[in-house]
């Protein structure tokens, strides 16, 4: 019986191990509150200088508006923290007049209020030009290692050197003329620089708060912000909760928040949909896999919104690896892809078949209306012809003699489906069977830079709204993102010239030429489609539909 007694003790101990769990009920105030979702996993950072992707930038913008804001629907550059600006005659110096007396604020968890912060002497702390100088300098400082620094650097005098650890902060073309006048000087005059000056990395940050709390200053109890929302809570990996900042005066581009509270959850898309259908969420991303049902469902279809976004899906050829060092083979593969089928039967979102790389809604990109014959499209006969030419070039009898082709891709659902569809299309149109090889995504990304496969994925989402970001930044021969090592002096020359021209029509013309060269004449890239953003919104929510992936949460409202 000793055994039995010991057993009983054990069972008791085990039951006692059970932790007591208290029911945590989140008290909802009387105000309007919304719940939405954005992505899976924790955001990298809400520190403007440390954010990386569009989700980080979305969150950062609610808290730290930039000088300018790219309207999420029209994509026009509007003024946000700047109330006006002047440009010098040579077009290189911009003088921004800031909104005055915008206080730094913090949410006080004890009082449940957003409070304007004061310094030690009790004087209110306002966002000033000095904060801009500090934030921008911090962004360019190599010690910060800001992921977005390289995008700003070419547009600020002395920035490239400083960021490379050679120049000094004093030599930067940044100046706080007075509290509310901020002056930036660029080495060259470029037309789209207002968009650059509004980038998520180019935001003011509170030097004193960072001094006080170091690398944990972005936690709710330490942070200081000034935008339409203030940070209430950040349950890492789970959700972020914003509350309305009553002190934000509102400006042309970024108005005051309409809702009192907004929670952004980080979760799987198919789970979002179930939570949405159960009524637990107000706005979600609609999973592509369920679009068929959503469209057919009378309720869900009325809640569905599909807007084209500014990204582009394409696959590239490694022009250094056979057989894709041959332009005819590249063209054959590109002609063989039936983009419309891919969209209708695989991706299903009503994407637009891409005839070239830059989406037409990007500023100065070629448009489908003006360029009906530009670019490449599905053409099985052309594909056959090009294949024959290519084989002749290489002195091969048939496609079977080509070197083995392996398509390596990062194993996500969309890419896997795309790769499998392309495999079928190539086999049908060219009689060439490519092998697929799925890698874990990070391995794939890291191999791209070192040694991209024969065919690689070359999707892109813009950093700023100008065709330069697609063509010169991605495909110039020395670009980091030109994974296929495509080297065309002609292309380089066109995009270099287009960048510094001031006449928009001339630039548009040149970009159309560059596209034709890249996707048809040289077929370095195989454009697939211009994607869409599909979302579901409960009927009692009014909102705008961002095409930029950067949501303007302050414009969202709940109709009661």
């Amino acid at each position, binding site marked *: 019986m000793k055994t039995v007694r010991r057993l009983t003790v054990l069972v008791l101990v085990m039951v006692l191990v059970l*932790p007591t769990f208290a*029911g945590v009920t989140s008290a909802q105030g009387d105000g309007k509150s919304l719940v939405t979702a954005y992505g899976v996993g924790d955001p990298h950072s809400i520190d403007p200088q*440390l954010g990386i992707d569009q989700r980080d930038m979305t969150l950062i913008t609610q808290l730290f508006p930039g000088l300018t804001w790219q309207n999420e629907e029209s994509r026009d550059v509007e003024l946000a923290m700047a109330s006006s600006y002047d440009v010098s005659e040579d077009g290189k110096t911009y003088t921004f007049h800031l909104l005055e007396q915008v206080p730094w604020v913090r949410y006080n968890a004890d009082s449940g209020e957003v409070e304007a912060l004061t310094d030690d002497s009790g004087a209110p702390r306002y966002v000033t030009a000095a904060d801009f100088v500090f934030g921008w300098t911090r962004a360019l400082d190599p010690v910060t*290692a800001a992921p977005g620094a390289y995008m700003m650097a070419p547009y600020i005098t002395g920035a490239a050197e400083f960021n490379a650890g050679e120049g000094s902060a004093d030599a930067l073309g940044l100046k706080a003329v007075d509290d509310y006048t901020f002056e930036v000087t660029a080495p060259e005059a470029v037309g789209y620089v207002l968009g650059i000056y509004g980038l998520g990395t180019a935001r003011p940050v509170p030097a004193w708060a960072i001094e006080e709390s170091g690398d944990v200053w972005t*936690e709710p109890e330490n942070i200081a912000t000034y935008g339409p929302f203030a940070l209430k809570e950040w*349950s890492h990996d789970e959700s972020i909760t914003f509350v309305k900042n009553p002190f934000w005066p509102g400006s042309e581009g970024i108005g005051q928040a309409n809702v009192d509270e907004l929670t952004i959850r980080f979760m799987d898309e198919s789970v979002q949909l179930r939570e949405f259908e159960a009524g637990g969420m107000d706005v979600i991303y609609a999973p592509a896999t369920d679009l068929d049902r959503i469209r057919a469902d009378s309720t869900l279809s009325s809640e569905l919104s599909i807007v084209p976004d500014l990204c582009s899906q394409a696959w590239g050829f490694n022009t250094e690896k056979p057989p894709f060092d041959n332009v005819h083979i590249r063209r054959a593969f590109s002609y063989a892809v039936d983009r419309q089928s891919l969209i209708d039967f695989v991706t299903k979102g009503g994407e637009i078949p891409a005839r070239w790389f830059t989406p037409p809604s990007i500023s100065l990109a070629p448009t489908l209306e003006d360029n009906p014959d530009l670019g490449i499209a599905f053409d099985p006969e052309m594909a056959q012809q090009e294949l024959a030419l290519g084989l002749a070039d290489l002195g091969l009898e048939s496609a079977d003699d080509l070197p083995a082709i392996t398509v390596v891709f990062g194993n996500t659902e969309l890419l896997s489906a795309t790769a499998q569809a392309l495999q079928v299309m190539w086999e049908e149109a060219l009689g060439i069977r490519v092998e697929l090889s799925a890698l874990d995504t990070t391995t794939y990304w890291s191999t*791209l830079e070192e040694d991209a496969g024969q065919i690689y994925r070359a999707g892109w989402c813009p950093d700023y709204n100008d065709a330069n970001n697609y063509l010169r930044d991605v495909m110039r021969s020395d670009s980091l993102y030109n994974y296929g090592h495509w080297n065309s002096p002609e292309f380089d020359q066109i995009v270099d010239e287009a960048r510094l021209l001031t006449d928009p029509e001339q630039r548009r013309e040149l970009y159309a030429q560059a596209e034709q060269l890249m996707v048809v004449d040289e077929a370095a890239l195989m454009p697939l489609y211009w994607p869409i953003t599909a979302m579901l919104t409960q009927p009692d929510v009014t909102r705008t539909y961002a095409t930029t992936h950067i949501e303007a949460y302050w414009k969202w409202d709940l109709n009661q």
Partner: protein
Amino acid sequence: MSEFITRRVLWMVFVLFVVTVITFILMHAVPGGPFSTEKALPESTIEQLNEKYNLDDPLVMQYVEYMKDILIPVVMTGQQQKSLDHEYLINISLPFDDNATLRWVNFGPSYKSVSRPVNDIFRENLPISAQLGVLGVLIAACIGIPLGVIAGLKRNTVYDYAGMGIAVLGVSVPVIIMAPVLQYVFGVLLGWLPVTGWGEPKQMILPTFALGFSQSAVLARLTRASMLQVMHEDYIRTARAKGLRERRVVVVHVLKNSMIPVITVIGPMLAYLMAGTFVVETIFAIPGMGKFFVTSITGRDYPVIMGTILVMAIFLVLANVIVDVVYAWIDPRIRFT
């Protein structure tokens, strides 16, 4: 016995050491790093980031630094700057100075979620996984043990097949399917229970059931086997021969004795489940630690990889030691070797 335990604990330390070394080497050998993102960063930025996190030091140095931060306690005095470097799991105020604290165990920062220390994961996510794990095991026991008992008592009857059938159903339906179906039926269709989240008792029902049901087969099968064995032990025959009522024989003798192996299995099971379960946590959007086992590896978040694997290793090694000890304690026939 105390010598046995001492030796096992010493070995445990050695095992943990080797696990950290292997993990450290492997994770640095895997292609890509924490800053390999979908949109590549320029070489110079990566270098700056590597420098910021000391990833450009020789591996041995990095390992030593990492282990030092975990193992060596430090005494800090004066006003402390808030910083991830000062983020320790154990903080004990020292009596001799107002501001002096003894700090111990710093698992470092997460590279992917930059303002977050790995310690946070242990403080915030691990307890949630532990709750989920304990509740899951309880449910598994509540379903599995009675089914096993019935099946054992009524061997090769309809009850046996039905009981084991239910248990095997739990293990055979993948949680990836069971969880969404539960969410759809109880959350969307009936609207009785919340679809996702953790914290309120209502939110715990579906995930713990999904987890518990999937584990119940193990316990059911084990209980059944153990019942069958015990029922044919000599002392049970003796009890029967003495004329004890069958009910009493079953409850007092068979049941209690056949629980021994079941309990020794529940220990390691708890260890696994308390460290977190990826699928259940992902589908029910539970902020537990299980996700990090996978996401830290796919994201190459080195400190999180090290931290989670180390915690897992501690749980497992402890569970094994405890099972050995408990097993010997319950069953005196077993010698300590």
